[in-house]
């Protein structure tokens, strides 16, 4: 390992940090409904998910051939600086969405980061537009629809079959089934997402000439990636768990079981049939579907709308941050160091902001999660048609994009903490964010 340069070392650490954020960002996918229905106690749930993620990391040696799945042209000699900048963009976006308690795809954040960094460093030629549509846009629309419809039908069915049974009598069975489904989701997540990080690290090692091209990752890479994602999972992204378990809809044991089974099935079917869907979007979709499937169930479209907006913003926002980071990192070693320092400051600021309204395993199931200002539409046939509130939210949230660039692009003294803190009110109405944007935008632009 004596040949690992400082840059490669930084890339490896950044990749592990991304892996860690990926872990705690995605705990909700497997465990949000499990926690909210009381199938498992919060701490038990995240511990189980962490162990399964760790096991999953060791299950397969089939390392992702390309870290971006062909979206970015990796053949033309992708530089460690580009990988580094892309990872920074993905990490910052992951943390911001976590602060807002919004489930968003970690893979899409990584794709967005790599695209942004490639655009800046290599230019338009480095990005494969067709692949962006195929691998990001279409799955983003398809995942929640497929999972939502499957969960909706399954929820209807299970309520119908067990309609003359006492809910208290059946709850235990449902919870057991839900735990099994959640375990499958965790295992699949560990296999897929830890592999991704291993692929990134291995690629960095290959570009640095430390390991031969097309070789399997060294053991220490597998172990560190597995441990990073497991630690992140165990930490628990409680904000996102609360949104998914309580914020989108109220989940009862039969719904939790139907949603989790639907999610596990869709994830396995899609990855097996070669049409990879985002785990996060599948799980969110199935939760909403199960919300609509119960008689009298409601989906909080204001929360769902914010979540969908976050999905739409993931790619460009992570790309913007990564692009700015790439611009700086291309300046040489001092630029790379600068990006690393700024990224660390941004992460610290977001963490400090999160402490203002901490959410952990003690209050993850509190019900007063959401603003009640948004539209609460009753269960209807329109699985994915958030009413007009969605459009209004889209507008204000689009304006909010520059906030995400601030922490990285702005100099140390600039409004990093204030911008991040201003975005703090968790899943509150978007209005408090907008004025902050106005303040944050100007300095950010000035320094970029």
């Amino acid at each position: 390992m004596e040949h690992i340069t400082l840059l490669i070392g930084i890339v490896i650490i950044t990749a592990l940090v991304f892996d860690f954020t990926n872990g705690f960002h995605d705990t909700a996918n497997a465990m949000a409904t499990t926690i909210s229905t009381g199938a498992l106690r919060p701490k038990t749930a995240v511990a189980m998910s962490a162990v399964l993620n760790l096991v999953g990391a060791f299950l397969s040696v089939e390392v992702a051939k390309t870290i971006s799945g062909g979206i970015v042209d990796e053949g033309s000699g992708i530089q460690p600086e580009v990988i580094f900048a892309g990872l920074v963009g993905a990490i910052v976006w992951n943390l911001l969405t976590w602060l807002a308690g919004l489930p968003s795809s970690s893979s899409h954040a990584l794709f967005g980061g790599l695209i942004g960094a490639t655009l800046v460093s290599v230019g338009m030629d480095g990005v494969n537009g067709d692949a962006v549509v195929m691998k990001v846009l279409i799955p983003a629309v398809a995942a929640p629809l497929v999972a939502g419809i499957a969960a909706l039908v399954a929820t209807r069915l299970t309520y119908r079959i067990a309609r003359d049974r006492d809910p208290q009598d059946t709850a235990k069975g449902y919870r057991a089934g839900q735990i099994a489904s959640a375990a499958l989701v965790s295992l699949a997540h560990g296999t897929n997402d830890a592999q991704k990080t291993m692929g990134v690290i291995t690629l960095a090692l290959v570009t640095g000439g430390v390991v031969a091209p097309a070789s399997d990752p060294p053991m220490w890479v597998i172990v560190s990636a597995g441990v990073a994602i497991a630690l992140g999972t165990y930490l628990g992204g409680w904000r996102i768990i609360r949104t998914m378990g309580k914020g989108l809809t109220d989940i009862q044991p039969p719904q939790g079981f139907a949603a989790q089974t639907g999610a596990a099935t869709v994830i396995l079917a899609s990855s097996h049939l070669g049409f990879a869907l985002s785990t996060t979007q599948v799980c969110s979709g199935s939760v909403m579907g199960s919300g609509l499937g119960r008689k009298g169930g409601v989906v909080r479209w204001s929360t769902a709308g914010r979540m969908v907006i976050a999905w739409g913003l993931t790619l460009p926002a992570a790309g913007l941050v990564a692009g700015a980071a790439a611009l700086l990192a291309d300046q040489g070693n001092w630029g790379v160091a600068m990006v690393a320092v700024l990224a660390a400051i941004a992460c610290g600021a977001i963490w400090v902001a999160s402490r203002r309204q901490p959410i952990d395993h003690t209050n993850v199931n509190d019900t007063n999660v959401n603003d009640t200002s948004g539209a609460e539409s009753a269960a209807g046939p329109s699985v994915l048609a958030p009413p007009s509130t969605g459009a209004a939210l889209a507008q204000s949230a689009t304006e909010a994009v520059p906030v995400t660039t601030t922490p990285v692009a702005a100099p140390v003294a600039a409004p990093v903490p204030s911008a991040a803190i201003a975005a703090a009110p968790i899943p509150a109405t978007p209005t408090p964010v907008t004025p902050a944007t106005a303040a944050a935008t100007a300095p950010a632009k000035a320094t970029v």
Partner: protein
Amino acid sequence: MNIDWAALGQVFGVSLVVTVAMVGVFTLGIVGTSAKPSRSGAGSGTVTAGATGPSALGRSGAYLCFALCAAAVAYGIYLIVA
């Protein structure tokens, strides 16, 4: 632009069928092992206190359902590992 509609349709179809089948089978298992509500015998006028337990047939059918689900989970793990 070449959108792989076939793969998408396949994912949708398989997901829908498997999800509904799994949830249905598992629910049948739960129904088989849980107590029937007492109102099933209400028509005769005799008031039975509490619920009647599951029949032997229902119970063995339920175990068959759970076994099916366990097999499906095992296949899922196989898919992850392979």
